C-alpha cells in the first residue's frame, strides 16, 4: 500500500460569487521514502496541494489516503491528530515561536507526542539540532538566528516526532542560493538517514534538481511526473 494516494482531488475556492478552481483533478501516488518536488508557475496550486496532503485543508471533491487512513473524511479532531503524529511541516517563513529558543522550539513539537521521558526528549532534541548543524546555538532565539539557521530549526522541529511525511512549501524561497543549497542538503541527508518521505515545492531550479521525483503542476493539474537518478 502506498504511503500517500490522491484520487481525482479537486479544490474550488469560493471568492464571493466567483469560483476559483485551484486543483482540477489530481491523481498522485507517493511511496514511503520518496524525495519529491512539486514545481510549476505561480498560482498552479502547489500550496493548495500541499495543504490538502497535510490535513490543513480538505478537498472539495476526491479522495486522499495517507498511511492507510482516508483523510478526506476525517473529523477536525482526527485531522489534528494525523498532523500531530504523521506529518511534519516546513514553511517559507519558518514560523518558529519567537519567544522560545531553538531548543525549546523543537522540544515543543516532541512534547506534544508525549511518549518520551524528559531525558530522552532532551537527548533527542540536542542530537537532532546537532544533525542539522546547530550545535552551540541551541539557546538562541529565532531573532538571533540567520534565515538558514531558522529553517534548520524548522527542519529539526518537523523531524523530531519522526513523522511519516514532511511537507515543505517553498522552504528555500527566503534564502540566498548558497544557504538554499545547505538547507536542501540537510533535507536530503535526513531523507537518506531516517527514510522520511519529503515533498517540497520550489521555484528555484538549483533546488529542484536535487529531488528524485519531479511533479509539474499546471493550472491545478499534474502535467508531468518524472523520476530522476
Amino acid at each position: 500500500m502506498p504511503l500517500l494516494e490522491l484520487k481525482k482531488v479537486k479544490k474550488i475556492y469560493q471568492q464571493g460569487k466567483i469560483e476559483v478552481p485551484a486543483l482540477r483533478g489530481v491523481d498522485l501516488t507517493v511511496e514511503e521514502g520518496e524525495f519529491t518536488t512539486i514545481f510549476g508557475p505561480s498560482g498552479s496550486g502547489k500550496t493548495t496541494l500541499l495543504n490538502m496532503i497535510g490535513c490543513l485543508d480538505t478537498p472539495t471533491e476526491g479522495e486522499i489516503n495517507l498511511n492507510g487512513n482516508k483523510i478526506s473524511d476525517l473529523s477536525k479532531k482526527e485531522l489534528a491528530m494525523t498532523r500531530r503524529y504523521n506529518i511534519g511541516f516546513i514553511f517559507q517563513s519558518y514560523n518558529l515561536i519567537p519567544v522560545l529558543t531553538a531548543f525549546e522550539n523543537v522540544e515543543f513539537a516532541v512534547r506534544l507526542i508525549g511518549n518520551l521521558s524528559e531525558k530522552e526528549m532532551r537527548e533527542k532534541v540536542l542530537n537532532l539540532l546537532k544533525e542539522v548543524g546547530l550545535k552551540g546555538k541551541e539557546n538562541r532565539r529565532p531573532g538571533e538566528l540567520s534565515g538558514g539557521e531558522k529553517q534548520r530549526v524548522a527542519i529539526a522541529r518537523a523531524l523530531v516526532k519522526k513523522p511519516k511525511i514532511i511537507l515543505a512549501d517553498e522552504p528555500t524561497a527566503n534564502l540566498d542560493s548558497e544557504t538554499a543549497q545547505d538547507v536542501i542538503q540537510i533535507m536530503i541527508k535526513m531523507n537518506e538517514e531516517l527514510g522520511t518521505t519529503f515533498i517540497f515545492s520550489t521555484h528555484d531550479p538549483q533546488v529542484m534538481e536535487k529531488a528524485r521525483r519531479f511533479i509539474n503542476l499546471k493550472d491545478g493539474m499534474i502535467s508531468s511526473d518524472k523520476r530522476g537518478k
Partner: protein
Amino acid sequence: MPIEAYSGGVCSVSSPIVEIEMQAVGGIMSIVLLIGMVGIINNIILSALERKSEIGMMKALGMREWEIVFVFMVEATGIGIFGGLAGCLLGFIGVSWLVNNGLNFTAIYGDWLDWAEYGVPLLDTIYGVWNYPTFSYVFFLGIFVAIVSSIIPAYWAAHKDPVESIYRR
C-alpha cells in the same frame, strides 16, 4: 429622616457619613477595575491578532483548539500575577505616601478658601488609610479577569482556518 436612606444595616456602628464614603469608594473602585479589565482584554486581543501565524503553526503541529486556548490562559495567568504584583507594589508606595505625607489641598486652592467655614468638614490635607483586603481583592480579581477575558479572543484565534493564519491571506 432622609439620612436613614443611606444606612444599609450591614454595619450597625457606621454613621451615615461613613456609609456615603463607602459607597463613593466602591464606585471609584468599580470604575478603576473596569478600566483595568478593558486594558487586559485589549492586550489579549492584540496579542492574539499579532500571533496569528504562531497560532496557525500550533495547529499545523497538531494542537487541538482547546490546547491552544489553554496556552493562552496560562499566559494570561502569568501576566495577571505579574501585573497584580506590580500594581500592588505601586499601590503600596502610593498609599504609604498618602498615609505619611497626605495630599495638601492648600497647594491647590491656596489659603483663601476655608472649607470648614462653609460647613464642609474637610481638612487642608487628606490622608490615606491602609485597606489591606482591597489589595488582595483587586489582586485576585485581576488574575481572574485576565484568565476569563483571555478565553474568547484565544478561542477566536484558535478557531481560525490554519491555512489562512499561516499564509496571512
